């Protein structure tokens, strides 16, 4: 009789533990999805701001058509990206093109003095920062989610209810990490 009750209590504890583990994983998964949405919101904002910026600076920077074209191309490619890894790669290219544009804009004093451009540039700088902070937050929470699925005994529950590890938002291709090169020589 005593053995029987002991058995029942043991089963009960195990069931409670499984429920707690499962709920924890579901919570984390939702946080990861929410984190991804935060990145997405900022990426969209950047995509919306870029045509605006390019149109505003085009008149001032007539000698930099190639750079402007590259920004537009990178932006269009990024808009059509699918999935975390693809988005990360294409947004990386876009970031590179944008920072080159900003670096070149230093050569145009009238452009820098334009109030409209200043505000647009501040908005884009802030959006860039927001993307990287949202990414930082997303990667932290996704790592937490992945660890919870991989450690023992959590991995049993994760397998049982088929949870999948989340991809991290990272730049994989070495070329995308490259800092844009800016020619600082004085010759015209």
């Amino acid at each position: 009789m005593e053995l029987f009750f002991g058995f029942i209590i043991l089963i009960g504890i195990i069931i409670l533990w499984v429920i707690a583990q499962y709920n924890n994983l579901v919570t984390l998964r939702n946080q990861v999805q929410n984190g991804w949405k935060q990145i997405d919101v900022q990426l969209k904002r950047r995509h919306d701001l870029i045509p605006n910026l390019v149109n505003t600076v085009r008149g001032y920077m007539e000698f930099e058509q190639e750079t402007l074209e590259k920004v537009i191309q990178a932006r269009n490619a990024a808009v059509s990206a699918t999935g975390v890894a693809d988005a990360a790669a294409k947004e990386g290219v876009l970031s590179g093109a944008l920072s080159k544009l900003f670096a070149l804009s230093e050569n145009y004093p009238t452009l820098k003095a334009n109030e409209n451009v200043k505000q647009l540039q501040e908005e884009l700088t802030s959006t860039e920062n927001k993307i990287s902070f949202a990414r930082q937050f997303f990667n932290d929470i996704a790592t937490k989610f992945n660890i919870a699925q991989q450690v023992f005994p959590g991995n049993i529950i994760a397998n049982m209810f088929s949870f999948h590890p989340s991809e991290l938002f990272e730049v994989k291709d070495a070329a995308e990490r490259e800092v844009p090169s800016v020619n600082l020589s004085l010759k015209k």
Partner: protein
Amino acid sequence: MAKLPRNIYEQQAANRRNTLVVMTLFVLFLGFLGLGFDVFFLGFGSEGFGIPIGTIVALIFGGWSAYWSLESGASTVLTSAGAIPVPDNDPKYQVLRNVVEEMTIASGSPKPSLYVIPDPDPNAFATGKDPDHACIAVTEGLLEKLDREELQGVIAHEMSHVRNYDIRMMTVVAALVGAVMLLSEFGRRSGRLGIARGVGSSKRGKGGAVLFFLWIIALILAPLVSQILAMAVSRQREYLADASGAELTRNPRALASALQKIDSSVEPTRSIKKGTAHLCIADPLGRNINGKEGFFAEVFGTHPPISKRIMLLHAMAYQHA
């Protein structure tokens, strides 16, 4: 007292432990004052009297003042500093609004209400009862003197106060200091009226007299001791906010150079009153003590020496690289 941190996370852990110790000391101290009153004035511990009324009253009084300060503290502080809500569409505050949004995203916490204080001296503070009702106030001088990254560092520092529940902690500690002061005043008055019963009675003997003497000493020192405790909490919180702020921006150097700029502006922040000093990123009163190192400053300053904070931030930056 504070040793060089090994990394950001270890420093956070160490600071949390220290804060817990200080809070416990506070509660014990309040309880000790109350218990002494029970034993020496109401005869608790002798037969036929089993309820430590004084202890209960002391703890309830402390809890009540802490609760009350949480409910009305933030608006009082903001009003007394002359803080004005930041308008939503004024391009003058575009950078500030953006930087706050960035830090909201980085920390994954709700967006705080923003206030600006018309004062030329650079300073900032956070208040409110929890992250959902948090307020961050910065002076006009801060917006003028700091560049974007430095401002980001300061906002990250303030967001960390919010996220670590420092804003609640500091409000509660301030209230507890007040409670201890009031109670010790009450205790001393009772003592003077000569209603002490237990001391003279032969039952207690020599040991009782020594204990009574110790209790009276504690009573007299209570206001001082509680303030020292509060200062200790405040200083620990500053180190922690520096560390976790750097964790948000991953740019400890920007905060270090912001602190340098705030420190080098000699003017005191006139809009911020003495009672709010412990909330600010740097001592608004420009008191010399917070700039010094050594025992006296370690015990009585509301803020750690800025030079030491800058040094710790540079150490973190070095580890990041």
